[in-house]
């Protein structure tokens, strides 16, 4: 009897050790990945912000410099390719003909003017003998043809293009955005921090990094949530083992708190409205604007609270505090109070306040409201942005544009959601177990009293 009991005891304590060890490993994994996800999410946010800043519409579509550069380049190209059409040549030739004709007329009028001096008279006779006006007139087309030949020669075109080019360059130097010097400096420093020297390589590196970090964040989300879910599952299995319950509950509560902490500090929702392409017809080509970031926002619940409280408006401050108290404070208080009730049922479990806060304060726990509210905001935002962007979508001959709305739910929201689900189940299961045990206790007491009476 005694050894059997002893071996049973050893088995129980062994089971206890193993279970606690597994829970410990799960919690440590969770904390480690929770720490990692913090770091990576922060890095990712920095990358995304840099990208959105560099591609902001202020430095593209709204920048005079960009417009000037594109226009000047197109005009220069046009100048380089400039050739007179046959019609234009015809016109020019007629003009030259006319000019030469008037020149000839003028010359002969000058010659034929009555001359007083002997030399003049002699000259007039000589010229009139040698040259007849009709003969000269007959030669005019030949001269205009020669002149046209010179004007339409490639080297002449080049000279004309050069004159136009220098004029354009001169003018374009006088058109610039008031912010040009500062902007260039900022951009260069950002590119430099990525080890790049130009925008293309910066974008490539930035994109690679943020894609990698996004993937990591979601992988860590899965790992962390699985750990927390496993612990919850384990706790549900061992919920009736009184010697394991307090320690497992504490592990579960800590696991849930890791979820909560990640949930409130990581971005919940990212709003990203861009003008993917915009082409405006100009001369024979088009002016192209790519990837213009119109609006970018990425905020965590903590950021939102901070902004609301810091905004100065009375209503905003109240709402910020309410979110902090009811969506972060109360969930923690509930876990704390229920934990206290589990750890010391005799002392704290009977306490009126602990009991109320741990098991009956759901009315004040607005974590569930917040998850619904964020989802509503997300969908509402998506609708507003799609609606607003669609007014910027053009498909006309003179202008074509494509907008894109990459508004998305971010890991922070899923962490918070996981926290809400897991903590709710945890507390609900505890509450039910307590209730069952209480009725059992009552039944035992009852039967004992009956026994006693017999």
């Amino acid at each position, binding site marked *: 009897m005694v050894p059997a009991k002893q071996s049973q005891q050893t088995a129980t304590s062994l089971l206890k050790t193993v279970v606690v060890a597994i829970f410990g490993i799960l919690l440590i994994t969770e904390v480690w990945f929770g720490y990692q996800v913090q770091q990576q999410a922060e890095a990712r946010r920095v990358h995304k912000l840099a990208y959105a*800043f560099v591609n902001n519409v202020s430095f593209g579509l709204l920048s005079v410099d960009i417009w000037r550069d594109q226009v000047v380049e197109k005009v220069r190209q046009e100048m380089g390719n400039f050739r007179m059409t046959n019609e234009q040549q015809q016109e020019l030739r007629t003009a030259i003909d006319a000019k030469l004709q008037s020149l000839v007329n003028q010359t002969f009028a000058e010659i034929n003017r009555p001359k007083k001096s002997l030399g003049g008279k002699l000259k007039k006779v000589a010229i009139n003998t040698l040259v007849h006006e009709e003969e000269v007139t007959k030669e005019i087309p030949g001269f205009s043809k020669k002149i046209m030949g010179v004007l339409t020669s490639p080297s002449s075109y080049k000279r004309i293009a050069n004159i136009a080019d220098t004029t354009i360059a001169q003018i374009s130097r006088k058109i610039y955005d008031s912010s040009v010097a500062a902007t260039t400096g900022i951009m260069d420093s950002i590119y430099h921090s990525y080890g790049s020297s130009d925008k293309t390589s910066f974008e490539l590196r930035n994109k690679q990094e943020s894609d990698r970090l996004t993937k990591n964040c979601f992988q860590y989300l899965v790992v962390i949530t699985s750990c927390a879910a496993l612990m919850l599952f384990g706790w549900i299995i061992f919920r009736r083992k009184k010697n394991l319950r307090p320690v497992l509950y504490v592990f579960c509560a800590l696991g849930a708190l890791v979820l909560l902490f990640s949930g409130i500090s990581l971005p919940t929702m990212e709003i990203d409205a861009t003008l993917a392409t915009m082409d405006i017809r100009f001369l024979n080509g088009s002016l192209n604007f790519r990837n213009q970031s119109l609006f970018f926002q990425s905020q965590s619940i903590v950021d939102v609270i901070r902004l609301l409280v810091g905004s100065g408006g009375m209503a*905003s401050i*109240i709402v910020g505090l309410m979110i902090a108290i009811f969506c972060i404070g109360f969930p923690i208080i509930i876990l704390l109070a229920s934990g206290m009730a589990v750890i010391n049922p005799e002392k704290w479990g009977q306490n009126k306040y602990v009991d109320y806060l741990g098991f009956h304060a759901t009315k004040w726990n607005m974590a569930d409201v917040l998850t619904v509210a964020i989802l*509503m905001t997300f969908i509402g935002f998506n609708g507003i942005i799609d609606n607003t962007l669609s007014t910027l979508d053009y498909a006309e001959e003179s202008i074509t544009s494509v907008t894109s709305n990459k508004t998305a739910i971010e890991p922070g929201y899923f962490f918070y959601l996981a926290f809400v689900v897991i903590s709710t189940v945890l507390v609900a299961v505890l509450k039910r177990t307590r209730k069952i045990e209480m009725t059992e206790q009552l039944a035992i007491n009852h039967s004992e009293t009956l026994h006693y009476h017999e």
Partner: protein
Amino acid sequence: MSDKIGNSAYSFRFAKLLLIAGVSIILLIEAWCGYQMYCLSAEQKAHKMDYAFVNNVAYGLFSVDSWRDQLLSAAKEEVKDFRLMPEQDAYLRKEINEIMRAVVDHAFEVINREQTSFRGKLRKFAVKTFVNRGKIDKQVPDMTNNLMKEITRPATYRKLSKAADTALSQIGKAGYDSTVAANQLLMDSIFRIHDVSTRAAFEQKTVSRLTQIKTETYRYVYCILGCIFIILLLWLLLRNQRNLHVSLYLLSVASAMIILTIGLSTTMIEIDARIDKMELHFLDKTISFKDQGLFFQSKSIIEVVILLLKTGRVDSQVVGWLILVFSVLFPFMKLSSTAVALMSEDKWAKNRFIRYFAFESGKWSMADVMVVAFLMTYIGFNGIVASRLETLNYNHIPITSISTTNTMVQPGYIIFLSFVIYGFVLAAILKKISRNFTQL
């Protein structure tokens, strides 16, 4: 003894009547303030819409007409000062040189042609005798020089600039004049509504009226908050007068309903996106645009719901219904179910459905408050460019950026929030007094 009971019953009835009369006056004041707020918020919306229309980017930065004058006057200035640069001078000189040479070549070619007539032969002979080809070739650069001198004379430049000036003035004049006239007509009609004649006067008048509306609206907001405060004070004073609790509670429910109606119908949020300032240098001239409105929306909760339901997208419609449920259906259910529970103590008070609505549903109204708060922080603080420049200490450079910092929550939001909090307090009071009732 019976006299005493009669006396106390009489004084109780008197106290009750007094309470009902007093609180009713408060309710009337509340309703009146609410109506005033509604009117003011409608007026404010109309003013802001007109202001946003007049300042819309389509009539400023994005309007060809408003650029045209600025650019043309700058271009005219530039044409006036136009002088050939040395390198351009060189190219032009070369071009003229080439032409001269070609002409001289051709002239000699013509003369040297096989001549059949006697005169032709004589001419050829004369030219060969008297004209030295080499000499003429040498003269070509001189002739070019003379021509260039002619071209670069101030008088020629003047003539040139005059020609360019008229050409510039002609650019798109017909179309321009008609659109300018149409816009002017449109603006004038708006200005006339506001009883002003110029844009500056319109802006000044609108801004001063808007500040006035704001102070007036806040006066009414404080008045309504004061009414809530008085009712809560009454609860504190009458906390031991159990026989008055039912009447007071029903009156409180009525006041909550009035506040909810005000909160739902008055403007709650205003979204305003604009380009603050754009400044550029165009040919020695600084062109700047200020306060260019891109997007303006001013909405109450009900208007938001209607907007979402009208989008035709299923997900947006679901959100629209959710807002309707959380901000209209739940609160009214809650208020009426608490009233029902209080009036018929036992029968209804145990009903789970009623209990849920009376005590637990209040927190869901916070969902709407939170949605607006999130919208505000996401839109109102979109200072990615400005904030970054600030952190880099570049905050004084005139970068053209889209700013939404004029996005604001409006008094309707404060009233709705007060309603939600008031609802929490009323639920707590109900719990207390219904326990009192059960104890009885």
